[in-house]
């Protein structure tokens, strides 16, 4: 309890919030990284997932991307890219390994679920859209995209939380973010600081989860328009 008290008093000390290595700066670094990673991942995964879902070609890869991605350890990717970054990208050495590992983490589930969401669009609806004279592109953007959006957003929420969590590992290769507090505290075995860092990261992860939950409620208010999820939930009976 003493450790917790000290951790909380560290967090509630205003001086620790300001400055280039303060809580605010680290949080902003963290959030910025997460935002960039999600943007890159969306740009990479959603168009490919939609095209594969629309045309049905390359389905095997799209379906299995999430499973394969799960097997890739982000920490390993960071460590592997790190020496390469030192050699080839000499500025912001810790940034690139972190960014690349996080994109590798974020793309597969988004790809798979965009594909699944487009595949899940009622074929009658697609047929009807073609029947009223929509071009393939119009079908893709005007019908399949909006109908796939809820599931893609749900996935984005899960991915965002994972990216927040995994970005902490960037501190191991000298990048900033909230992981800095944890990694620095680990290296000098400072219990209260360690706990404080953990509390901050956990709070950010929960906050991001809530923000996305709110966003989804506003953007896609119909509960779980992504059919597979609603079916599973119905089966679970929650």
């Amino acid at each position: 309890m003493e450790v917790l008290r000290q951790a909380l008093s560290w967090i509630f000390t205003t001086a620790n919030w300001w400055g280039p290595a303060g809580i605010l700066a680290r949080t902003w670094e963290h959030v910025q990284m997460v935002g960039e990673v999600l943007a890159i991942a969306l740009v990479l995964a959603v168009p490919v997932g939609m095209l594969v879902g629309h045309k049905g070609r390359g389905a095997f890869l799209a379906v299995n991307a999430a499973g394969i991605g799960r097997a890739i350890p982000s920490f390993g990717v960071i460590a592997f890219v790190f020496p390469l970054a030192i050699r080839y990208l000499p500025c912001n050495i810790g940034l690139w390994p972190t960014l690349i590992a996080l994109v590798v983490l974020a793309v597969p589930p988004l790809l798979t679920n965009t594909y699944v969401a487009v595949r899940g669009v009622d074929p009658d609806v697609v047929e009807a859209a073609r029947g009223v004279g929509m071009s393939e592109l119009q079908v893709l953007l005007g019908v399949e995209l909006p109908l796939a959006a809820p599931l893609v957003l749900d996935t984005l929420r899960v991915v965002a939380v994972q990216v927040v969590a995994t970005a902490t590992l960037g501190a191991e290769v000298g990048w900033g973010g909230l992981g800095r507090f944890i990694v620095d505290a680990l290296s000098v075995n400072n219990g209260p600081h360690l706990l404080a860092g953990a509390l901050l990261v956990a709070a950010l992860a929960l906050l991001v989860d809530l923000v996305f939950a709110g966003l989804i409620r506003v953007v896609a208010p119909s509960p779980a328009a992504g059919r597979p999820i609603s079916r599973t939930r119905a089966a679970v009976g929650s």
Partner: protein
Amino acid sequence: MRLADPLVDWGWLGQHLGQLIHLALQHLELTAIAVGIGIVIAFPLAVLSYRHGRVYGPVSAVASLLYTIPALALFAFLVPYTGLTTLTAEVGLVSYTLLILIRNTVAGLASVPDDIKEAARGMGYTRRQQFWQVEVPLAMPVIIAGVRIATVTTIGLVTVTALIAEGGLGAYILLGIQQAFATPALAAAVGSVVLAVGADLLLLGAQRALTPWTRRSKTQALPIDPRELVARAPKG
């Protein structure tokens, strides 16, 4: 810094092959303990949740919370209390398996058709017989799908535990970072992927062996990664 090194230093790999295998085995041991304890904790909770709907909300909420807390933060929470030990690592790893295991077990049990349960009752099965001999076997594919996801996820997370204790192949990831040396990092990452894929296939094989009746009908894994259900807080 070993900037002049080639991407893969085969000589180094050859010299450290024994060590690599040792770390891989340690990695599997840490994973097996975590998933094993996870199952022991999750199964009764899932059965309880399935039988008493009211329990499911709180159980699932706590498991979701544990899952949402970043791994490194969770380990960091524990270090002041349990130290830089394998115990800390295992507590964190186990807590990550719970949500997936509980959700899939509940979903598996809920997927058993009512008329099959009805038939079992009609044939004179006691409640216990019906549960162990009818419901659990029929739920097994979905339960094992959860175990597969939990196992693959845990194998990835074990690498992170190298920061606080023994971390299996994670030790070589740390070595790679400390020496800015790509070879051990790559060996550890590839090794971890191989372990994950191997464990996944092994469990798939176990599932097929345990539930021979699913082999004929085309059983597909859920199209949606059940993890995608994960961070969704229970409704209401």
